[in-house]
């Protein structure tokens, strides 16, 4: 089971590296395209284009910085919210594998959302930032709910007599 988990995690890590590389490439292209739009606006005397291009460029930069700095911090925080020992015996191994895979998938999903948002912003799309933030929030909420659900399910099925983690026990009581 551990070998399968490592294989999947290596695949996720490869995907993470590829997504980050693509994000940087798309962000630079988006910045250049916004500069081109701004220069065209200036040459034609279209002030709205210049204004839109400046706002779009700042948006692309903010989204990219969020993806490169914010997403890893969010994923690490969400991973830390999972209980360390969510069960006894074989369920512990299964639980830790599930936790690692959930963290990896969540990180990839958040990064994918921000890459989509950068690409959308590059071509002047609207509402992309809110969609990316919504997806990121959804992922974090899902991970936190899973961190509560796993220990409760284990105790419900009587697979473990160890006490529940303090936060979860507090929620139930």
């Amino acid at each position, binding site marked *: 089971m551990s070998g399968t988990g490592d294989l999947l*995690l290596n*695949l*996720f*890590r*490869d*995907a*993470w*590296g*590829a997504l*980050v*590389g*693509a994000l*940087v*490439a*798309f*962000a*630079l*292209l988006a*910045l*250049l*395209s916004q*500069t*081109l739009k*701004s*220069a*065209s606006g*200036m*040459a034609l005397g279209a002030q709205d284009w210049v204004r839109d291009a400046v706002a779009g460029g700042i948006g692309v*930069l903010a989204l*990219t*910085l969020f993806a*490169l*700095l914010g*997403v*890893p*911090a969010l*994923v*690490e925080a969400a*991973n830390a919210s999972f209980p360390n020992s969510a069960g006894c015996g074989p369920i512990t191994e299964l639980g830790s594998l599930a936790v*690692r895979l959930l*963290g*990896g998938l969540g*990180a990839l999903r958040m990064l994918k959302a921000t890459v989509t948002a950068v690409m959308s912003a590059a071509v002047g799309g609207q509402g992309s930032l809110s969609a990316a933030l919504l997806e990121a929030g959804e992922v974090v909420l899902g991970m936190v709910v899973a961190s509560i659900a796993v220990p409760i399910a284990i105790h419900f099925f009587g697979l473990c007599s160890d006490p529940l983690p303090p936060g979860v026990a507090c929620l139930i009581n």
Partner: protein
Amino acid sequence: MFNTALEAIQTIARDAWGFMAGLLVVVALLGGLFYSLQGTAGAAFGGSKMAGNAILGVIGLVILVMFAFLVIPELGTMLQNLKPGAPF
């Protein structure tokens, strides 16, 4: 598997970068020519506001082109250095 996809994306992105950089130079040159014409016309007919706008426009275009060719590559280097490892 993903490295192959990334290399393909980067090849396309490099092509797109070259195309857009060339287009930016063309647009900036045309804009500069337009502003030169406007400035010359303003100077010829005594339109000081036209000449002033033309000079400002040329300066703006030069700043934009310098931003594109000097600042964006530096931003790219900065973003490359910020690339995070997988947090899982």
